[in-house]
């Protein structure tokens, strides 16, 4: 029973090992097969998780250390889906950079494994260990493009922030353990009242907030997203963020329901600050990747509204938003990964006339940006609408209004990119390499999902609500 429920995770771990082993023996020209192997493993794990989610699996393993409930399965599906998309665009990306190290795929798989374990856990020890797995793999991935000093710098900055945050998180956990005598989330919350519990919880929340890149724990994000390989930035800004949000939500809403109240105000402030700073700073960026980095700080702010409002509707809305956010954000970063060369190529001016050079890519990027901006007929609008609706309903009308105001600010920079895409006059330049089949599939799927969930959001929303119902 236990092992069967863990099958997706086992598949992932097995695939990672297989990739590492095969890497030793494969000749250089065949390294692309490693990517396909990883994709197969991810797809199998995704299929398994989706089936568990569909079956409404609710299993508590090893005395509750491991908890596979629909909430966890929902986020596992998100993470796996994001990773699969990222993998799709990584294949041509690595090829173009002339990197054939199989370690990339193994590290990506292990990072995904960490995220999967992290969201399916009810024990601080397991959460911590799984998060470290995600982090350690991510640090190495961020520094993957060794010859490019920007990649190393991105890795170092992420690493330092991550390790410091994890130290704070660990210290907070140790205090909670001392207060409650347990590491089990369901026990810790009940026994950690009092002011020291608050101190500990702030430290813990700060550790997760760093991964979400919420203000004021966001400062690594622009540098890291800009310097890391584009697919890795896509992964960090979606899968990693979603997993951290899941754990934070589980800790705050299920383990510490009594600690609500002042908490909500705190998250309202963090959410408001993230929306404001992310959107305003994005406005001033000329580098598109950096602009997207700030935009994803802002997007994190929208999602954090859910923790401020803390009603089931709001949390369901955040689940929906994160799910569709994966498609649009991975998609946007992925398109950029096709454009940039070793010498940059991600400035706004570099996008000029892309619609004529690469119409499909330009159209896809337009869809993602329009969705991130929250325009109609895209999933982004639906997500924002639910979040803002939940905020108004939950008595946080000002937060919804704040969100709406900064959504308008965000139009400025999203549409500036569109103007360059479609209206810029293209300088003659070497034709960008043709997209490969896996990348085309990934981008196509992301585009389709972004539009589809904008037109038929119902099933996904239903799933989010259902996943939530089982949370308690």
């Amino acid at each position, binding site marked *: 029973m236990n092992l069967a429920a863990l099958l997706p995770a086992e598949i992932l771990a097995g695939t990672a090992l297989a990739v590492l082993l095969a890497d030793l023996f494969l000749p250089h020209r065949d390294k692309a097969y490693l990517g396909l192997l990883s994709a197969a493993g991810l797809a199998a794990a995704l299929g398994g998780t989706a089936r568990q989610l569909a079956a409404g699996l609710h299993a508590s393993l090893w005395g509750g250390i491991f908890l596979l409930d629909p909430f966890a399965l929902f986020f596992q599906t998100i993470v796996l889906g994001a990773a699969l998309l990222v993998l799709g665009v990584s294949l041509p990306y690595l090829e173009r950079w002339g990197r054939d190290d199989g370690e990339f795929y193994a590290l990506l798989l292990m990072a995904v494994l960490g995220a999967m374990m992290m969201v399916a856990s009810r024990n601080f020890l397991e959460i911590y260990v799984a998060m470290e797995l995600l982090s350690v793999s991510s640090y190495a991935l961020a520094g993957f493009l060794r010859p490019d000093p920007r990649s190393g710098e991105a890795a*170092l*900055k992420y690493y*330092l*922030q991550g390790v*410091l*945050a994890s130290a*704070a998180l660990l210290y907070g956990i140790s205090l909670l353990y001392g207060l409650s005598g347990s590491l089990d989330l369901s026990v810790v919350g009940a026994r950690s009242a009092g*002011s020291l519990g*608050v*101190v500990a919880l*702030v*430290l813990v929340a*700060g550790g997760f907030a*760093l991964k979400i890149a919420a203000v*004021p*724990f966001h*400062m*690594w994000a*622009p540098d890291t997203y800009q310097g890391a390989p584009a697919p890795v930035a896509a992964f960090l800004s979606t899968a990693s963020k979603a997993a951290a949000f899941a754990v934070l939500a589980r800790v705050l809403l299920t383990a510490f329901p009594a600690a609500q*109240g*002042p*908490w909500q*105000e*705190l998250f309202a402030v963090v959410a408001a600050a993230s929306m*404001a*700073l992310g959107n*305003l*700073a994005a*406005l*001033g*960026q000329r580098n598109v990747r950096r602009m997207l980095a700030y935009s994803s700080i802002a997007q994190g702010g929208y999602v954090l509204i859910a923790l401020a409002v803390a009603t089931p*509707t709001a949390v369901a809305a955040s689940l929906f938003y994160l799910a569709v956010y994966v498609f649009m954000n991975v998609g946007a970063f992925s398109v950029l990964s096709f454009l940039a060369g070793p010498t940059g190529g991600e400035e706004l001016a570099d996008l000029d006339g892309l619609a004529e050079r690469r119409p499909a890519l330009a159209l896809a990027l337009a869809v993602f940006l329009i969705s991130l901006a929250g*325009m*109609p*007929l895209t999933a982004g609008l*639906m997500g924002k*609408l639910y979040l*803002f*609706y939940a905020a*108004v*309903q939950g008595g946080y009308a000002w937060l*919804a*209004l704040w969100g*709406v*105001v900064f*959504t*308008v*600010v965000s*139009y*400025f920079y999203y*549409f*500036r990119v569109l*103007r360059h895409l*479609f*209206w810029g*006059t293209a300088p003659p330049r070497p034709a960008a390499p043709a997209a490969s089949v896996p990348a085309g599939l990934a981008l196509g799927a992301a585009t389709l999902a972004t539009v589809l969930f904008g037109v038929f*959001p*119902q099933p996904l*929303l*239903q799933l989010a609500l259902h996943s939530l119902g089982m949370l308690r």
Partner: protein
Amino acid sequence: MVLAVWLLPLASFLILLAAGRRLGHRSGVVSSVLTGLTLPGVVALLAAAPAGTTRLAAWPWLGILGHGLSLGWLVDPLSVMMAGVVALVSTLVQVYSLAYMKGDRDFPVFFAEISLFTFAMQGLVFAPDLLQLFIFWELVGLCSYLLIGFWHTRPAAARAATKAFVVTRTGDLGLLAGILLLWSATGTLNIPRLLALAGSGALGGWVLTGSALLVFAGAVGKSAQFPLHTWLPDAMEGPTPISALIHAATMVAAGVYLVARMYPLFAASPTALEVVASIGALTALLAAGMGLVENELKRVVAYSTMSQLGYMMLGLGTGAYTAGLFQLFNHAFFKSLLFLAAGSVIHAADTHDLRRMGGLARRLPLSAPAFLAGALALGGIPPFSGFFSKDPIIAATAHQPALYAAALAGALLTSLYIFRAYFLVFAGTPRGEHPGGEGSSAMRGPLWILTVLSLGSGLAYHFFHRYLGRHPAAPYPVWSGSTWITLAVSGTGILLAWLLFANRPVERPRLAAPAHRLLAERFYLDQLYAGTIVRPILALSRAASWLDRRAVDGLVNGLARMVMSFGRGLRRVEVGRAQSYALAAFWGLALFILLLEGVR
């Protein structure tokens, strides 16, 4: 029937999207024919939806939150009327564009975008649900953005498109907030249900007034009402047929349509109605003033559009519901006529500048009378159509002196500025080289049809009133006590224009210099917005970027580090900036602890 009216343009869009390049010039024909085919559909709807009926077809779309949202259509006299205007003007404009846009590099794209616009506009018109309305509302805005920027190689066009987008979006923000407010207060976004709630008094107090005003904010942006009107004159950078279709007859009228659609909501709140009427009157007056000193032909017509939309709002706000809508109906025709005639003029004169035209009446034997017909309709001279709608609106304000004065002054200015344009363009002697003449038959046909409509559409006032009137219907006084006054005022305007502008070789500013300047600078509102909104946002953005990157690091490191590291060059790994990031995070942690403990 609804589906045909609604989806034929979509089909046209999809066909052009798929095969536009291959169809080439024929793409315009395909699009025009498919749009034209919706006209019989509208006629059928007219028969199927007699006065006072409401047919609602809605399928659940988002059934989870509140009482859910639905997707479908709402057929009542209001939506049928609006759909008719959209279908007719869209067809005529497309036929006109066949000739006007001939030879343009992106000819198929142009028609694809017009088709998409028509589809979106019909979706807006038939929306039974506020969310559906909002979605198409935004889609319409997007099409407008694309079409204003159609000649995007001209920087002015790209700038104008962006400006239009952002300014109208500011209004849409209000609409969205209003929708959220209504949704959370009532749990439904179904329009008939909402209106029933408002009518029965179940929805009241600040929620009612607040949501009505927020919805009106959306209408203000879309219909270019004060203070969100600044985008419309710039939008004239788009092709002239677009100005006729989107920025005169249909999209900008969507704001008026929205207010009419949600009228019971407004009617239940006297405050909201007062605001609508005041904004309308103010816009009517200001825009007419600005039109008086404008030297670009299309912009004159654009100011007149703003001004007329103001009259429509004024009508709705003072309770002259049918008159306001009838003005929308008539205006759609005479304003498209003015734009298309202006297009012919520009085509022939090869300039936008009034000061370089003149004496064109001989060269343009059709466009000149067509423009004159449009101008007479605009001026409200019987028996042209404008008279039958504008006069009742002005009459409805008679018991409110301030509004009445504004409306009358607006009327004077209206005939003054439009006949100034007419005389400067067509009368006198040529003041420049005018190479061209009247366009091809594709351009002449729509002009003829619209001229006839501008002459005749007013006569339908009786039918219109009975068909659209709210119940219990108030009488529709076409000829009232104030009519003579209005006519006298309008006539004075025409006379003044003739005295001042006809047969003058070159126009010199006739107004006192400061007033002229104030009007020419559009009351300095653009500058005001740039100073109070755009620049602060950009400054905020710069401040945010600076705070985020430099402030912490700069504060804790100062210049010293930069100088030092510059001098020595880096030979070992230093992490100064990353440390500053962490410093900010830990200050955050400490302050949050302090904050929470303070709360307890």
